[in-house]
């Protein structure tokens, strides 16, 4: 049974992606119970190249095809350059 109420996810941007889009985190309301990471990426941004973007759901690295549930935290980040 589909719930009619809208649901929130937290979107986190890091490093150059946060700087390019001008924000660090945002709560988004998603329709239905799930959506693909890729759909969130499209929702927040239509210009940045998708190559070499690392994505995580609830701080676990995953890919653009993974599904996000309500209350999840999804993050988009560039390649790591630490150490």
């Amino acid at each position, binding site marked *: 049974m589909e719930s009619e109420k809208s649901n929130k996810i937290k979107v986190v941007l890091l490093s150059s992606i946060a700087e390019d889009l001008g924000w660090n985190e945002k709560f988004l309301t998603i329709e239905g119970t799930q959506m693909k990471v890729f759909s969130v990426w499209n929702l927040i941004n239509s210009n940045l190249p998708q190559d070499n973007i690392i994505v995580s759901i609830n701080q676990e690295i995953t890919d653009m095809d993974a599904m996000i549930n309500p209350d999840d935290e999804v993050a988009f980040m560039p390649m*790591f350059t630490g150490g």
Partner: protein
Amino acid sequence: MRWHLCQCLPVDNLRIKFKILEETFNPYKEFELWEKVNKNSANSFFIGRVRPFDQFGNDLKKLEIIHYKGMTENYIKKYLMKISEKQDDLCIFLLHRIGFIYPNEPIILIAVSANHRGIANKYLQEILEFTKYKVPFWKKEWTFKGSSWVKKNTDLGFEL
């Protein structure tokens, strides 16, 4: 072999110690403190320091390192726990800076001890590559003209 029992400072009762630091540190003091409680015979250490130049060769004012709070710590912890299970004598110590770091200040300290030199050196290098490529850290270089994110890690300096 009695000396397999290592007396490292424990994190969750393991032979692991790591910390993400917002302030600079003295790597020699850290090594000394760590090795005092660690009776292994082979001790390998690494200190990475900030180069005084940016990726384009300009004078560097400072380096900025950011992390993804929570995720970064968890990734390091899980990885070090996995490594420490491979050898029951391994002791591991990792410090990584975040925030603003000035030329020649240390960014990273790694110490690995074991009963064999090969083991200590091998895992030190694995941990170093791991922190460069598999952990959410990002570097931004500040010069006197502006700042830019580092796009690519420095290489090993030779072909493998």
